């Protein structure tokens, strides 16, 4: 186990990050706020900051701070850190590392997931903005719109709160999508909006139903807080067919 000393406030308050070779190496308990990264590779210096170190050496570990964290760390001097992710510099790129913080009762994984197979992680929940049905199932978010014959089908579901996308480069959503009508014009979108009512700033869209669809949108130009949601559209089909859509959201997460 290696210990990395980080000075996130530029000196004074110190954050010790321990590097373990495997998750199984984490001790049963530690001090509240203890941070650990998992890597079997050699580690160099430790950094905890909002922006990546400018001139890292191979093996350096960077704890990315900012936005919202599942496990804030309270240091001496009133300094509170919000770790979002941990990276090790390979010599050419920052590579994501598993990272854990001991909250006083358990090790909590630091993650950039908003929602993961039934668990709301960085967000408290979702809201139905348009459409008929939103149901939180055991391992997924169920969206359905029961448009009638000749009607338009649409449903919009957004996470309740805005998310700080500063320094985030990609937003991803994994979902299953089925439609009762295979006519052209149906689509499902991952939306990044300045509000929850349709002022969409960026989006990624799929037009073919299927399972395990991954929608990715480049948000590297976005600073500040935005809303994240899904929108499904079915054009009015003939008077004898239903344009209904069913979507199951499995995972929504951010990438640095």
């Amino acid at each position, binding site marked *: 186990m290696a210990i990395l000393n980080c000075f996130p406030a530029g000196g004074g308050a110190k954050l010790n990050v321990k590097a373990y070779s495997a998750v199984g190496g984490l001790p049963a308990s530690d001090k509240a706020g203890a941070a650990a990264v998992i890597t079997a590779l050699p580690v160099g210096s430790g950094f905890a900051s909002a922006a990546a170190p400018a001139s890292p050496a191979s093996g350096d570990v960077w704890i990315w701070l900012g936005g919202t964290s599942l496990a804030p760390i309270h240091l001496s001097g009133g300094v509170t850190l919000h770790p979002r992710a941990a990276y090790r510099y390979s010599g050419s790129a920052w590579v994501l590392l598993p990272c854990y913080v001991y909250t006083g009762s358990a090790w909590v994984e630091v993650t950039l997931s908003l929602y993961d197979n039934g668990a709301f992680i960085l967000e408290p929940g979702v809201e139905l903005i348009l459409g008929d049905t939103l149901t939180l199932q055991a391992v997924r978010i169920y969206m359905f719109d029961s448009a009638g014959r000749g009607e338009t089908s649409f449903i919009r579901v957004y996470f309740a709160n805005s998310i700080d996308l500063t320094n985030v480069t990609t937003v991803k959503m994994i979902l299953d999508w089925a439609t009762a009508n295979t006519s052209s014009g149906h689509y499902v979108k991952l939306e990044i909006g300045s509000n929850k009512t349709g002022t969409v700033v*960026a*989006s990624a*869209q799929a037009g073919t139903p299927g399972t395990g669809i991954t929608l*990715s*949108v480049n948000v590297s130009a976005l600073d500040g807080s935005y809303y994240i949601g899904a929108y499904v559209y079915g054009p009015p089909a003939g008077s004898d067919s239903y344009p209904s859509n069913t979507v199951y959201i499995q995972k929504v997460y951010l990438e640095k």
Partner: protein
Amino acid sequence: MLYYLDDQRMAHVRQNEAGTLAPWGDTAGFFAGKCQAFVEGYRVVPDGQTWTREDGAAFSGLMIAPAADPNLLFAGQAEADGETIAELDAAVVELTYQYILLEYEV
């Protein structure tokens, strides 16, 4: 509405002189009513195509995402909308004046 995309999938409102930009139809109307500066601040990856960012991350279409700070793009759009409204106001004043003149001639 038809727009044009360069090899980095940046949007343009007009074809270039060499005719090398790829046309893309905005069937959903994302850019409807938007000014040139707004449109040209966006990147569009068409359906069925893939764009690779400098860091190697790949994005499949359809993706529409700003390549510049969207707050600046929306501010520019608001300015353009203000100019359009001012032009329309001036046109209405002129037409009203012409109408009054016609009435007097009658």
